């Protein structure tokens, strides 16, 4: 890789200037290595070590305390026969799919509108992005209030005379995930809009000129030329959204608490209640390992495309 070569050449140059005094490679510039100790410790102990630890203990029958009593796949068997977990997975799949499409479409559309050389661009951008500065707790609580059946959207429409109107996502198990989605999209689209806008700004002005000379309509230029050119930006945005979706937790806790019943449970919440609520550590470890697996499934194709492609090209 290019990085390794780079490191080698700086090493050579350093050797030429000060290498005569310190012959050993490992001891050269000891301060720079000492300074990296915290980072290396975090990477190896917490990130790598912690992950391996959790995976190993997911094969045990740990209850209140972690114990190394081998139990094979028992925890996973139990996990996949628990209705709450199945509901969590289904919810996350629905939310994830809808949120990915929604965020990309809305994010790109807003970015494209802002890129049309409009006035007050900064004001509009600030408005679209400010929800991203707020926490999921704040987001969840505000939307809980707006979607309140009595005083919120449903109540208002009924007040206009449409008595049978019904829109109560937070108390209706069938549509509760859409209630969460409304809040999630409100909070998250600004980020994607920003990424998309940065991508659009990176596109050569000549492309627009060329398409204008050829008389191609603006919308067609976006679909046929600009979006294909922005493939890497879309991929980055997608990976970012996807890894955020798997972590979905705070929003659910604040907005619905997993209810009504268990209809808006999500995997992260399942893990938390298994570990800290019902003192069932093994279940928590198994469930979190499954979460990790889903991230790996998302990330490997991306890493292959991003880094594998570069090596060949």
């Amino acid at each position, binding site marked *: *890789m290019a*990085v*390794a070569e780079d490191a080698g050449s700086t090493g050579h140059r350093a050797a030429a*200037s000060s290498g005569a005094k310190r012959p050993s*490679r490992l001891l050269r*510039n000891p*301060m*720079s*290595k000492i*300074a*990296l100790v915290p*980072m*290396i410790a*975090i*990477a*190896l102990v*917490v*990130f790598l*070590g*912690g*992950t391996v630890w959790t995976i190993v203990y997911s094969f045990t029958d740990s209850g209140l305390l972690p114990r190394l009593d081998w139990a094979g796949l028992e925890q996973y068997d139990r996990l996949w026969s628990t209705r709450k977990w199945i509901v969590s997975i289904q919810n996350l799949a629905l939310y994830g799919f809808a949120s990915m499409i929604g965020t990309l479409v809305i994010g790109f559309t807003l970015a494209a*509108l802002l890129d049309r050389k*409009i006035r007050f661009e900064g004001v509009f951008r600030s408005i*679209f*992005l*400010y929800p991203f*500065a*707020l*926490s*999921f*707790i*704040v*987001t969840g*609580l505000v939307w809980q*209030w707006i979607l309140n059946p009595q*005083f*919120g959207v449903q109540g208002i429409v009924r007040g206009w005379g449409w008595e049978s109107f019904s829109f109560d996502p937070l108390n209706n198990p069938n549509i509760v995930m859409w209630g969460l989605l409304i809040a999630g999209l*409100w909070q998250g689209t600004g*980020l994607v809009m*920003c990424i998309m806008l*940065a991508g659009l*700004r*990176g596109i050569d002005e000549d492309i627009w000129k060329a398409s204008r000379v050829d008389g191609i309509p603006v919308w067609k230029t976006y679909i046929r030329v600009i979006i294909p050119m922005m493939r890497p930006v879309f991929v*980055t945005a997608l990976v*970012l959204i996807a*890894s955020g979706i*798997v*972590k979905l*937790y*705070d929003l659910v*806790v*604040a907005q619905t608490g997993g209810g009504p019943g268990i209809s808006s449970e999500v995997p*992260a919440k399942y*893990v*938390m209640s298994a570990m800290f609520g019902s003192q069932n550590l093994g279940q*928590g470890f198994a469930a979190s*390992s499954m979460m*990790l697996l889903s*991230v790996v499934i998302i*990330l490997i194709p991306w890493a292959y495309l991003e880094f594998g492609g570069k090596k060949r090209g």
Partner: protein
Amino acid sequence: MANPATLGATGAAMDASRGQMSSDHHRGPRPKKALSRRNIMLYGVLIVVSLYYLLPLYVMIVTSLKGMPEIRMGNVFGPPLEVTFEPWAKAWSQACTGINCDGLSRGFFNSVQILIPSVLMSIAVASVSGYALSMWKFRGSEVFFTILLMGAFIPYQVMIYPVVLLLRNMGLFGSLSGLVLVHTVFGMPILVLLFRNYFASLPVELFKAARVDGAGFWQIFFRIMAPMSLPIFVVAMILQVTGIWNDFLFGVIYTRPDQYPMTVQLNNIVNSVQGVKEYNVNMAATLLTGLVPLTVYFVSGKLFVRGIAAGAVKG
């Protein structure tokens, strides 16, 4: 990036050419953009969407200024007929969480106590690491960095329990310093990436010249690199202040109830099942909690955007 002057010029040229092509909108010479159908559509859509994005903020504000009788009579969007600040006072000092009834103020001060050391420590560790990674590469340094970056994608739930054990062994579980450590650890991937990329973009000649003059690791960092990198330190600070203030998960796991940060306290107040729901107090509390990151956001403006863009696009 294209410089703004050229962008503006091409924009004007474009409008001119459009004007000539569509004669039905040709209203004679005008110095600036005409009110074309395209513009009405464009701004119309933008304004409608803006209103939608602003709606929750508006709802928070108006609800927090109403009295409970007025809330029961009207709806969430109605402006307050009689403005009262009582809900704010109550949210700050009297609202009950189920454990105690001293309002959000406790959570606020806890959050401040968590925030300041966490931000300082995470930035200190990450900036030095990023500097070492970009300028003092050695065999294997990139491997450690890759592992660290992967940490950004691993769901926190996978690492939560091992961290509980680590903190317990260090005697820090349930203490504020333990939480500070946790924030430092989990802030590392994005911050190190941010600093590494920034330092790598600085001219190498600077580094080489300092080396030839005999400057060491820390000297180069403090005398040359850090003073040149003020913007990226500010960006890192914005990222961390909003991120740590908004954290819920770590706060709820790694601290005791009397040390809960503001977000956890807020959730406990609003979602508490005891007593009558006081929506105005709840919204005042919500707004109070959102005030810190909102202030940071509106004051920092472009730097906030730069922070998330740097973290996102270059990753």
